[in-house]
């Protein structure tokens, strides 16, 4: 046994299962007597439902039942709830229109579920769905933010004036305006953050199961947080108490945020299973995923920075329109507010900041958190703005960043936008990244590329994010309708092996390995004797799940607390067995020792005594060695760092080749370096995808144009470069592990670095800014338009 504790690149324990085809994903599960659901969805963005005729479908071969919104409404079931309430700047609550599970009265986006066919086979359900006749009256629709807020725009929801869900501010406008009035210079930038579709490779799936003898429901679902789904669906939609509802999220094939939310299909299969008294399975076809998984991003912003003569940032003023889609997804309202505007200080000591966010309903798929969630939008805006300031003022872009950084000795640092950063060292991550990317050698590479007829550019992004979410009281005061602690149960078995029951959920992160490494480190148990269990409400005490890079910082901290309790109890048992005082017992490397003596008992001897309590302090201590802890974080954690992208553009085609990518991130304590590198690489690839390739497009009337992998450009292996990934860590000061989180940094830091590189490559072509994605046709047009001017010079 080599070193297996914190800091070891232990190979993943889940891999043999996945590499052998033994993974157990939701669609791999089949229940006896199982039926199949096929969901009929709106093929139009906005329409009144005048009637639904299901008679022919109900007579079709294999069909068991057909349900519509009227059937659910007849049982007074709830709509899909929203977990976060934002208040308008006048103090009134946001508009929160109903979100029926199956559409009632109107459909509001392409993909809105209208009816469900339950049949013996998938094909029979699908065939019968063709026989359902829905009579619609089409209504005018809006898809884009600017169209939705225009005067006289069609209303997505009756009574939601101007399609405004909320009009929210942070910061004092008068103070910021006064700074701008006195500034030497103001630099302004208008930009969009393109709408993305998360595209976890496993399409969503759900199986509802109903035990006809006990009346218990079980939902198997592709979820990042099964307890949250049990709470939301049980309490708000189907009115099933927790003791009668089990939610299992088995192996889940990627999430990136899109599998946090409570979706209609989960409620449909669970409810339908009770109605037909048989299991009901639904698996999304990819084309359904495109029109029903929550999308991400979709902002339009105007940003202005007030500067002094030397280029110091004096004040930041921002207005943002954020697309909510047709309904409020579970956490949607918090993304463009508390996960976005509170990050607008970034790594800079900008003294005053004002941001106004208007969240807008449109006839599009709901938008919610996607890898990074608000923080990529804030980072993209800031890091583009900083580069544009460098462009407009002529100040070197690295020097401009350096002179505005929050210094390493300023922590804890209170920003003007609510957050207090605990630790960081932005000069160091910058310095190391510049060295790793050979920043100083770039101009030679540019010249060499020019000789080959290529336009080479380099771009930098120095970023910060907030994760490890989140202190419950703080988020509660900001509108969260949930606590955001995490739960761990540590069970030391009689012979000393250990099972960890965690409320976090692994869908690619490797928790079965990293969380076990925490046990190796703290309890001194070999990795082979530790098992990690997650994803089942019947096994885990409770949990808030995995998102916002929280599993280690919050879930791992809960484990540390539970293991502290194990050790504290173990010391009492050890004191009894070795006839010593509890104060004299030390625990180290898996053994309880009497300090200053050679008397010792191994953990497995203590656990055996705990479960076979013959010689045991039974009057003072319960038998068993099994402890649970809830850990509520004291603050967010603040990973940050520096990303540098280098690109070459072929002027003949406009195609961008990513030639180098360098990331140096500060993620706090690293448990498994191999896994951290993998998380960063994956995040960077998604960021490159956003910057160069991906875009969820609607036509002006709300038809989804990018509805398949033929139309939505996913990054493939030859779109992504080999990457240089490193960490330069400062420790989180307020959690017991010092860990900050690494799941989202790649997707947050990289998009502005890539676009800054593209703009740099085109600096002779008169480009100050361009919006993502930097596709070949877009760049080719820019290059072509500049040719006559360049030729004349």
């Amino acid at each position, binding site marked *: 046994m080599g070193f297996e504790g914190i800091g070891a690149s232990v190979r993943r324990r889940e891999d043999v299962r996945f590499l052998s085809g033994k993974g157990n994903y939701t669609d791999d599960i089949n229940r006896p007597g199982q039926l199949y659901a096929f969901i009929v969805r709106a093929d139009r963005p906005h329409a009144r439902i005048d009637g639904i005729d299901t008679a022919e479908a109900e007579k079709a071969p294999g069909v068991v039942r057909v349900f519509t919104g009227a059937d659910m409404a007849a049982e007074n079931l709830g709509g899909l709830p929203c977990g976060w309430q934002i208040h308008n700047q006048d103090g009134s609550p946001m508009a929160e229109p109903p979100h029926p599970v199956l559409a009632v009265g109107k459909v509001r986006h392409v993909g809105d579920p209208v009816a469900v066919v339950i049949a013996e086979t998938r094909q029979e359900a699908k065939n019968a769905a063709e026989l359902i006749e829905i009579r619609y009256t089409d209504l005018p629709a809006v898809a884009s933010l600017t169209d939705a807020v225009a005067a006289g725009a069609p209303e997505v929801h009756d009574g939601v004036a101007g399609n405004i869900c909320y009009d929210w501010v942070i910061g004092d406008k008068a103070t910021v305006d006064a700074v701008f009035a006195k500034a030497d210079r103001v630099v302004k930038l208008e930009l969009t953050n393109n709408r993305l579709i998360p595209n976890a490779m496993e399409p969503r799936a759900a199986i509802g199961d109903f035990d006809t003898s006990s009346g218990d429901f079980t939902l198997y679902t592709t979820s990042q947080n099964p307890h949250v789904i049990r709470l939301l669906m049980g309490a708000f939609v189907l009115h099933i108490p927790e003791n009668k509802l089990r939610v299992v999220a088995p192996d889940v094939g990627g999430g990136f945020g899109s599998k946090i939310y409570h979706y209609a299909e989960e409620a449909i299969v669970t409810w339908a299973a009770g109605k037909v008294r048989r299991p009901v399975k639904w698996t999304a076809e*990819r084309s359904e995923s495109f029109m029903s998984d929550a999308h991400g991003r979709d902002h339009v912003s105007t940003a202005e920075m007030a500067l002094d003569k030397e280029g110091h940032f004096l004040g930041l003023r921002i207005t943002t329109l954020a697309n909510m889609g047709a309904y409020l997804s579970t956490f949607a309202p918090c993304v463009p507010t508390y996960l976005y505007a509170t990050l607008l200080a970034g790594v800079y000591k900008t003294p005053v900041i004002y941001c106004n966010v208007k969240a807008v309903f449109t006839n599009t798929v709901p938008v919610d958190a996607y890898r990074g969630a608000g923080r990529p939008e804030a980072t993209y805006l800031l890091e583009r703005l900083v580069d544009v300031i460098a462009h407009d003022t002529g100040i070197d872009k690295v020097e401009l960043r350096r002179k505005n950084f929050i210094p390493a000795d300023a922590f804890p640092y209170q920003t003007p936008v609510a957050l207090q950063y605990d630790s960081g060292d932005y000069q160091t991550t910058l310095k190391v990244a510049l060295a790793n990317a050979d920043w100083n050698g770039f101009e030679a590479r540019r010249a060499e590329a020019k000789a080959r007829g290529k336009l080479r550019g380099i771009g930098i992004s120095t970023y910060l994010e907030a994760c490890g979410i989140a202190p419950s009281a703080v988020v509660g005061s900001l509108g969260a309708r949930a606590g955001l602690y995490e739960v761990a149960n540590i069970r030391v078995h009689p012979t000393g092996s250990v099972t960890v029951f965690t409320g976090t959920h692994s869908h690619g992160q490797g928790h079965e390995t990293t969380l076990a490494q925490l046990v190796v480190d703290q309890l001194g148990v070999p990795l082979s004797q530790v098992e990690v269990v997650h994803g089942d409400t019947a096994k885990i005490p409770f949990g808030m799940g995995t998102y916002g890079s929280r599993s280690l910082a919050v879930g791992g901290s809960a484990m540390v607390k539970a293991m502290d309790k194990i050790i504290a109890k173990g010391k009492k048992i050890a004191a009894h067995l070795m006839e010593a005082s509890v104060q004299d017992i030390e625990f180290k490397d898996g053994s309880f020792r009497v300090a200053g003596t050679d008397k010792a008992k191994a953990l497995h001897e203590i656990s055996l005594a705990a479960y076979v309590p013959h010689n045991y302090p039974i009057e003072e201590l319960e038998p068993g060695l099994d402890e649970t802890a809830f850990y509520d974080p004291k603050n967010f954690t603040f990973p940050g760092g520096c990303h540098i992208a280098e690109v070459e553009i072929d002027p003949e085609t406009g195609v961008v080749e990513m030639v180098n990518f360098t990331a140096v991130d500060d993620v706090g304590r690293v448990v498994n370096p191999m896994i951290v590198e993998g998380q960063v690489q994956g995040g960077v690839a998604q960021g490159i995808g956003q910057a160069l390739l991906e875009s969820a497009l609607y036509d002006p009337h709300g038809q989804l144009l990018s509805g398949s992998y033929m139309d939505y450009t996913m990054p493939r292996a030859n779109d992504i470069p080999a990457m240089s990934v490193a960490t330069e860590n400062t420790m989180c000061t307020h959690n017991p592990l010092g860990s900050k989180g690494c799941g989202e940094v790649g997707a947050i830091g990289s998009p502005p670095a890539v676009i800054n590189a593209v703009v740099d490559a085109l600096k002779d072509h008169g480009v100050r800014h361009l919006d993502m994605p930097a596709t070949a046709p877009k760049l080719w047009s820019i290059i072509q338009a500049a040719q006559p001017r360049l030729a004349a010079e």
Partner: protein
Amino acid sequence: MPQVTLTVNGRQHTVDVEGRTLLVELLREKLGLTGTHVGCDTSQCGACVVHVNGESVKSCTMLALQADGDSVTTIEGLAAADGTLHPMQEMFREHHALQCGFCTPGMVMTAIDLVNAHPSGLTEKEIREGLEGNLCRCTGYHNIVKAIAAAHPLMHAKAAE
């Protein structure tokens, strides 16, 4: 209902299928071989890649009836009977070339065919181009490329034995 007879991972099966049944549906639903995944409906993602008579095929793009008389290998058929992993599986594990695991079976099956087809060696660029038909959303491909490069000499050394 028509019948198809095929060999899957060394075992012969005769199965009743509808004319429209896809090979992947046969594998997953009739034979219970759920290691082969379905990630899209446009033959773009490659999660369903298996070997048919030794060559990689997207099993969502082939009718079950077309496989009559064929020999099919799925991800479940790669490891030795004693559980020893195929060198490609082992290198994916060694180089952390998988995260959620969903694209992994198709990725491994494609990678094996790619390496088999290039006995004299593969450049990084050739590996990346060879993965054109397989999407991964987790890894950024970096470690997949490394794993395939590392498996190449192992597989060809083994073949030379």
